[in-house]
């Protein structure tokens, strides 16, 4: 059973407000080791520096989008299995289908509340202590 305060989470979004909000939500459930990346390139750099237990990434970003990032992550033999939750405002059926086919581990629709964030993370990592 993972312990919230030992989790390292990478938050990827091109907007500081959403990154901050996610970090804030994570702190509410006891996760404090949060690294922020403003785009896919920064995210890859961060993933090359440190092991993360979870990546929470936006879908729509300029340049490398969230699913591009996921594909690059999965292609890596070492850290490819890092769970990946997509955080997006797209909530139509086609988008969800596309994201699942791309291999996301879960899917959060913006705006989200803290219980949702928690349940999504637990669905991917197991109940948090």
């Amino acid at each position, binding site marked *: 059973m993972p312990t919230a305060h030992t989790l390292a989470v990478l938050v990827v979004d*091109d*907007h*500081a*407000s*959403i990154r901050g*909000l996610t970090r804030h939500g994570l702190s509410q459930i006891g996760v404090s080791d949060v690294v922020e990346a403003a*785009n*896919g*390139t*920064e995210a*890859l*750099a961060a*993933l*090359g*520096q*440190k*092991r993360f237990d979870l990546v929470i990434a*936006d879908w*729509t970003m*300029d*340049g*490398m989008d969230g699913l*591009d990032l*996921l*594909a*690059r*992550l*999965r*292609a*890596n033999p*070492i*850290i*490819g299995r*890092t*769970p*990946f939750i997509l955080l997006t*405002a*797209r*909530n139509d*059926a086609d988008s*969800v*289908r*596309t994201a*699942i*086919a*791309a*291999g996301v*581990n*879960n*899917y*959060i*629709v*913006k*705006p989200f509340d803290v219980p*949702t964030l928690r349940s*999504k993370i637990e*669905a*991917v*990592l*197991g109940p948090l202590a």
Partner: protein
Amino acid sequence: MSELDRLRRTFFDECEELLASLQDSVTALAAPDAGGQHAAAVAAAFRAAHSIKGGAGAFGSGILVEVAHLTETVLDAIRSGRMAPSDALVGTLLRAGDALADCVSADRDGVPPPENPPVLAELRRLLGTPADSTPPAAPANTLPDFPVIRADTAPVPPAPPAAPPPRVWTIDFAPNAKALAAGHQPLLVLRALKALGPLQTVCDSSHIPPLDALELTESYLRWTLSLTTDIAPEVVAEPFAFVAPLCPPQITANDGSRIGFDPLGVGSLLTTDSPAPVQEVDPTPLPEPVSPETDPPLDPVRPWAGPQQAASSIRVDVERIDRLVNMVGELVITQAMLAQQAQGLAEDRFPMLFQGLEDLASHTRELQESVMAIRAQPVKSAFARLPRLVRETAQALGKRARLILIGEETEVDKSVVEGLSDPLMHLIRNAIDHGIEPPEERRAAGKPEDGTITVLAEHRSGRIVIQVSDDGAGINLAAIKRKAIEQGLLPRGADPSDDELYELMFHPGFSTVELISNISGRGVGMDVVRANVNALGGRILVRSYKGRGTAFALTLPLTLAVMDGMLLQAGDETYVLPIANILESLQPAADAIHHLVGRGPVLSVRGQYTPMVDLARMFGHRSDPCDPTRALVVLCEAEDGGKVALVVDSLIGQQQVVIKSLERNYGHCEGISAATILGDGRVALILDVAGLRLLAARRHRREGDDPHG
């Protein structure tokens, strides 16, 4: 301020940028699609609307979410080719952008947003959705037809409407290596199932190889599960939703029903393991993460070779930069002090010291320029609101006008950019109101019906010049003259020059008397415009050609932190005069000086009379007047165009000075705009030419006919 308030503020800052990007992109759609730039513009506009919607759910109002949502949907339709960008569509999108801007500013200020902006109906009409069937703008975290999302808002599965008899589901679940590699954990799936009802688990471990053949990344276990529950099939399917594309489970019930895994159509079988529609992926793996044993591969990840390399930037609090600017200012002063101290030393005895001082000087200059460059911003942000202003003003006045922006990327200090916004808006409003003629009048004059307003920004000799011009009727000088005489600003029968008439437009008395809208002269609030521009250390010039148009040129300093100054000696004091104010310096002949009762001495230069101010006497450093014919006179022009001749003892030299606010540290001082610190550590005051002129005029009036004033 709480963390969330701070985030809110960040969001609204981001919105400003997103709205500007939306407007730019949509405007680009109005131009012909020459190099296929429409696709990029639509994508950028979509991203902007989408991002606004994403954050608005958390930080903004429902109406903001709704407008953003509909805008995004329309842009998506254009992106996928279901709608073609027409002029009407671009117009609607621009109005949608305007409505978004209104909602954003209302939300930011905490006032109720516009309740039902008309553009909502327009967008709905475009999309063919009736007003009442618009999906809830801020959806809870639920997705129609998609079970997995529903589960988490209601962690306990909802009871079905009419309880059917419990079914026994048999589930064959064989997680494979692919599923494990994608970060899925079979244990969590089993646990989630167990929460749905009594679960029997049979694990087939027969495929586990001997230890030496065991592959850590391989999956060897297979489960046959038996779940007894009366809940709906889609809820049973939920735990598998994300893993199903990789290793679809076989789920059958004792009554013959089956669950298949198209994620969106529960009950249809997913026939093949269809490849994920991901974009082309570079097969090169990521660099390995740092592990304790190996040397850390510190070189950064190969940059993404995507279509567009995003500019890397950081957001920094302005206060921090201001601190940096201040410190660099101190450094400039210290450097000047060291240079001055070294002047008494023999250069050949201390060659290294002099070399070092020289390097220090050049590095300081470079550092200062770099710091100023951080504060520099493209004037674009001051231009951002102008297109909307032109649209709305023209519409309100029944005129037609288009706006051309040139040199948006021209950079200038942030404070100058911020101060530019108001004067620019004022000038543009005036240009449409008083400059551009109604369409029929323009047609009659042989001009195109659409008036053109051009706003141009460029660097010119260390300053920035912003020019606002229109191709309207031009300023009617005769009307200005008539009006000025009516208002008593000009004596009857006066014969003012064109320049003097232009000057009258900026006279507060002229502009505030009444709104002049039926003469083509301008006037409304021009004094305010000039005051704003002067406050930035700038000046404003007008040129107008009858029937052809009018141009206003604003000349502003690039920064408000450093200035080129001339050091003057007056009595025992050193003063700094901004170079930009200096016209010339001269030693006048005695017959060029005249005394006017109640106005003090004036200097005649090439037939023009300019009031003279004895600086040392004015500031009380010396009581006896100094003889201007043996001193030096510096002829200055203030930002408002007024001239004054300063009598000083000598000119010391030209120097870049750091501006230290007097008002913030001491208080307002008439005739003085700020202070600086000289190389020798002394404080020198920076002269305010316009203030000096007023001060002198008042003093002469009071002192009456004192011949030396």
